């Protein structure tokens, strides 16, 4: 801050330093980094990069549960300890060798390329944020490396950004179904819905969720009116004013796609002030909070898990094994990010085992259009030329069982994939506003 005009003379002598610095930097970097990074480990292992939030506000609710699930599943897969049909060791015979990277970075693309080129990963599984996915999907196609988006929700990925994917897959459903199913659940349970209100975080995910939910409600029950639309800043944590606004506008239904700390803060502040008694509250990502809050979560709240995950997952040997193994190791039940990670890894394993190889091309070939069983039930890569999964979803109503001190969901309704997802090629918003053309809801 201080070296200034008087440095005129010193800079005069800086030539050798300036150039030598560049030269030194160049040479230094060459010797340090140009070392053969491609040096492969044993043939029987396959390097996989995992990118989720390990710091920041999304780490606690999403990134870390997903990483935990990844660690658990990798160990189990490498040991062949997953129940059948996944009880063979490794994927396509190779052991998974994981590298974890923090998604909380301003240079996501450069970090991605570093994984591909320096660390030499064969594939990358990751990305919670839709913003990351939008940036990474084209990069994956450019880098020609298998990339599996396991969580992010924006429908735009294959609708607009990468319309002809070759290397990019998404093993989770997109966010449209969360909102469509929430509205369908509400109508199916016959709750009064004359006026609806929303409290969603003011960023793309929250805005999309409310747009889809209010749009679906307008289609399903034409006399629905919007009482108030609240969009607090993400991670603000203090919702006193918003709750007052919700209380004074007396809506029948309050919809929220809050997650993480915001969700828990809203439940605590809202339940203390009786919002859950005055209105029917739908929490489309409520499942992540229910076991942690227990009795604090008011009975009667409609809970979603952004897919048939967690307590909404079907009863199966795989699911019970996963829940038990996760609980034994981490002391909490797995939430939907854990399920989604397990689902992605099992999809990869199913594809590799089917192809009998862990080569990128073999996995891509087998994963395209694949159908497999995860802890949350059947997943099929039906959209975007076999690159986008569809999956049904489910909603339930919260009930705290005082006798066993456990959080449960009752009145669970499952929605088939075709009921809550737009058909191949259709744009989500148009599909909702056009009255769900082609929806099959049994």
């Amino acid at each position, binding site marked *: 801050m201080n070296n200034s005009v008087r440095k005129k003379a*010193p800079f005069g002598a*800086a030539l050798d330093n300036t150039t030598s610095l560049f030269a030194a930097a160049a040479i230094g970097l060459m010797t340090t980094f140009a070392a053969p990074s491609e040096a492969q480990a044993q043939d029987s292992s396959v390097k996989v990069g995992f990118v989720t939030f390990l710091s920041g506000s999304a780490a606690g609710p999403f990134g870390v549960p997903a990483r935990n699930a990844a660690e658990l599943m990798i160990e189990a897969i490498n040991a062949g300890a997953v129940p059948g049909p996944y009880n063979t060791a490794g994927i396509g015979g190779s052991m998974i060798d994981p590298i974890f990277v923090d998604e909380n970075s301003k240079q996501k693309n*450069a970090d991605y390329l570093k994984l591909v*080129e320096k660390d030499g990963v064969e594939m990358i599984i990751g990305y919670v944020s839709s913003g990351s996915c*939008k*940036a990474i999907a084209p990069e994956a196609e450019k880098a020609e490396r298998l990339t599996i988006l396991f969580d992010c929700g924006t429908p735009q990925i294959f609708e607009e950004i990468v319309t002809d994917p070759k290397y990019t897959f998404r093993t989770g459903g997109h966010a449209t179904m969360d909102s469509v199913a929430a509205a369908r659940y509400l109508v199916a349970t016959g709750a009064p819905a004359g006026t609806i209100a929303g409290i969603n975080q003011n960023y793309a995910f929250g805005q999309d969720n409310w747009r889809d939910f209010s749009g679906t409600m307008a289609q399903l029950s034409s006399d629905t009116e919007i009482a108030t639309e609240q969009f607090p800043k993400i991670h603000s944590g203090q919702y006193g004013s918003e709750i007052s606004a919700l209380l004074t506008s007396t809506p029948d239904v309050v919809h929220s796609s809050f997650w993480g700390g915001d969700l828990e803060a809203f439940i605590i502040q809202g339940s203390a002030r009786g919002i859950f008694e005055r209105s029917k509250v739908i929490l489309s990502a409520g499942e992540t909070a229910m076991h942690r809050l227990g009795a604090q979560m008011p009975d009667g709240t409609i809970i979603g898990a952004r897919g048939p995950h967690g307590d909404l997952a079907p009863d199966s040997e795989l699911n019970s094994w996963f829940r038990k193994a996760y609980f034994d190791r981490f002391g909490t039940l797995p939430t939907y990010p854990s399920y989604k990670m397990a689902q992605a890894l099992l999809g990869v394993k199913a594809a590799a085992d089917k192809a009998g190889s862990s080569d990128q091309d073999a996995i891509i070939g087998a994963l395209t259009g694949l159908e497999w069983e995860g802890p949350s039930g059947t997943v099929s890569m039906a959209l975007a030329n076999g690159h986008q999964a569809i999956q049904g979803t489910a909603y339930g109503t919260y009930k705290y069982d005082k006798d066993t001190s456990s959080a449960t969901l009752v009145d669970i309704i499952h929605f088939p994939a075709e009921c809550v997802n737009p058909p191949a090629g259709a744009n989500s918003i148009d599909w909702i506003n056009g009255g769900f053309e082609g929806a099959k809801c049994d």
Partner: protein
Amino acid sequence: MIKNLDRTEIGLLIALPILIIIAFILPKWLVNYVHVSMGTGLVALGVMIQMRAGLVSFGQGLYFCVGGYAAGMMAKFYGITDFFVLLAVGILAALVLSALLGFLLRRYREIFFAMLSLALSMILFGMLSSVEELGSTDGFNLPTASYLGWSPTGETAQLTLYTLTCIIAIGCAIALNRFLKSPIGYINEAIRENELRVEYLGTSAHKAVHITYVLAAVVSAIGGVLWALPLGHVDPEMTNWTTSGQFVFVSILSGTGNIIAPMIGTFLLEIVRVYAVEISPNTWQMILGTVMLLTIIFLPKGLWSLITRKKKATRDDGASAPIAGE
């Protein structure tokens, strides 16, 4: 022109071919960090030239974002992909906005300049985060650039963009180096040291600050365009205060002694972060913080003082006068 080059500028010109050759020698992932560091490094330069006038902009992300978004919107809404048009649009947008905002900001100094610039950048952040057409907080994607009708793809496209980025970044650095040695550059030094005297010497400190502010905005917008194009993506995070904060920290850590410092500092900090993440993905912030702290403790005038200090030492062998305040 050539005869007027000073040593820093010659150094920069020599660095240009080295930078370009690097693309063929170093592994691609590393070149990639060099590439994006040039974009963000230019913003750090914008922060640095304002620091020379004693002004710390905690909202330089505003112009980083304006540049990226202006170019991106040109491509998104008008289908224009020409590199030079996108760059020109980014520059123009920053020029107009900063010329206007400059009338407000030039009255502010110290922490108040920092906070007002932060507030303005956060207002843009808030607005962009609510515009669905621009992808809200997720932002939107940019197409691959074309060059006066030529549309390379794949490796060629990357190398073309990289080479142009190098040329423009070095060009900007040379221009700013000249700026620092120009009368306005000197007036900025004087403003930082004693603004009252500047007015008594018969010139307007406000005008000099305004000009510097606009120039910094333009350079940052160029950085924004050059950063967004290889990434192919922009989002409002570009104008979030945490992004702006990083530019400030890079400038301080690098030192404001030389125009090259922030460019190299940006890259080095990026590499430190990458390796911190690699060593300890769960606690890399702690490593980064410790590195920053140690740098400040041992090199209070920034990394660049490593070089000036060494040089001083060799010079002082001959000359006897001790240099005060170093």
